[in-house]
């Protein structure tokens, strides 16, 4: 049901019956390594190219999610995934392996919540029994495409972020045990004129604020309604900027209730500069770490605002600014 201008409220509260996350070596050294289902020691995952490794990440996460949800791959009705690679080949190739109808979605690093919102919508209106949705990214595959060759010695400024190697997948179903999806607010493209591709957090912060504001307005609730509001990958700078922006707009948000996936995933001292980013960032942290904490009863209501920077290497070279987007999904458990 539509509420306000751009929020869906799901009366049937679709359930995330199972999730799975897969990570790489860098994530294995991170803060939330225990929340991953599968961690790889080798960035290549035994494949002969980074792109293939990227595909394998997503495949493994999908199979693991199905295994945990106790279903066969024939029962999956839709796959809704996306990633950052040109023409989204890792997602498409992984979908080829599963063989279910496939909808590729692109929202850059906000893909995870875009997929989850769409899945919830379809499931809510009886469109499917089981939907696999997720997002993935692979550090070196993404670096290779967006920046320089991985072995190239270019100094990154302190505003830069580290692309996560990982895939997070959720299995969404109309009934079952697990966290429930109650509402979702779709983002609009916000461009505040930042053009530095090494400052994604600063570019994406206004998009996150825009979506959070819209969600609260549409739902007619206060920020304190949620036990925790989690942004996708704003990093240190983006988080600070967005907090100040919200204060400026009169939204009172307690600092400890405002988390960022990009800051949760890695340990202090890992050379990630401003924090983590990438489509896999919000996917792995939400589907792994945060839902685990939810199931342990740490919090009941969570709003996940995944943020994405919709740029390409081409637009950057053509001196375009970076348009950004954020999608919010509210998840509740217990209570």
């Amino acid at each position: 049901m539509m509420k306000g201008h751009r929020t869906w409220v799901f009366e049937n509260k679709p359930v995330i019956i199972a999730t799975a996350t897969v990570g790489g070596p860098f994530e294995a050294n991170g803060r939330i390594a225990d929340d991953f289902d599968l961690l790889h020691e080798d960035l290549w995952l035994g494949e002969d190219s980074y792109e293939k490794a990227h595909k394998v990440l997503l495949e493994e996460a999908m199979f693991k999610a199905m295994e945990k949800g106790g279903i066969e791959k024939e029962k999956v009705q839709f796959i809704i995934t996306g990633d950052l690679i040109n023409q989204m080949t890792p997602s498409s190739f992984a979908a080829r392996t599963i063989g279910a109808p496939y909808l590729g979605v692109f929202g850059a690093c906000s893909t995870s919540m875009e997929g989850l919102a769409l899945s919830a919508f379809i499931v809510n209106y009886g469109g499917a029994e089981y939907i696999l949705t997720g997002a993935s990214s692979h550090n070196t595959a993404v670096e290779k495409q967006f920046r320089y060759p991985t072995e190239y010695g270019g100094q990154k400024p302190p505003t830069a972020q580290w692309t996560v190697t990982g895939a997070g997948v959720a299995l969404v179903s109309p009934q079952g045990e697990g966290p429930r999806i109650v509402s979702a607010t779709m983002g609009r493209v916000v461009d505040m004129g930042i053009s530095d591709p090494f400052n994604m957090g600063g570019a994406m912060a206004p998009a996150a604020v825009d979506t959070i504001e819209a969600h609260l307005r549409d739902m007619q609730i206060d920020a304190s309604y949620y036990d925790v509001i989690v942004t996708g990958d704003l990093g240190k700078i983006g988080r600070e900027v967005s907090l100040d922006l919200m204060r400026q707009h009169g939204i009172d948000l307690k600092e400890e209730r405002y988390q960022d996936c990009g800051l949760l995933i890695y340990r202090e001292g890992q050379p990630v500069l401003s924090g983590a980013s990438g489509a896999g960032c919000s996917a792995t942290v939400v589907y792994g770490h945060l839902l685990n904490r939810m199931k342990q009863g740490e919090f009941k209501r969570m709003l996940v605002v995944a943020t994405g920077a919709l740029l390409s290497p081409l637009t950057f070279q053509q001196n375009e600014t970076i348009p950004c987007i954020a999608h919010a999904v509210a998840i509740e458990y217990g209570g």
Partner: protein
Amino acid sequence: MANEKRKKLTPVQQEYHLFEKERETKRPVVKNCIRAFFVGGLICVIGQAISYFYMYFFDFTEQTVGNPTVATMVFLAMIFTGLGVYDRIAQFAGAGSSVPVTGFGNAVISAAIEHRTEGFVLGVGGNMFKLAGSVILFGTFAAFVVALIKTIAVKWGGLG
């Protein structure tokens, strides 16, 4: 360049620009420069040592020793790039490791290694100069213009 770009922005965007700038972690310019100075200087000292080595043991003069020295430095760049060390050094040293000829070598070699998965012809061959190509292009073209002007000036202007 940054200013020109900013002019095209709307007032709201400009306001946000300033808002964001205030909260952005500044680049540690002074620290970076000091690091660049020491690492860059050190690489040049290594180059000088290699020069003396070639001059002492082979028939190279100060004039001709540049080529073997450069080749050796590029070779070292290959080893360090291949072992995955050069990008680590670069994150510390910045321009200190990219301005010396080793940085040029690193740009070529890293691209070559990276695109090996696309095959030797289309991958390695096609992408080798994707970073360093501009250096060759602008170096060659600038040299062409400079040399042309100078030649003309000397020949017909009686200069030089």
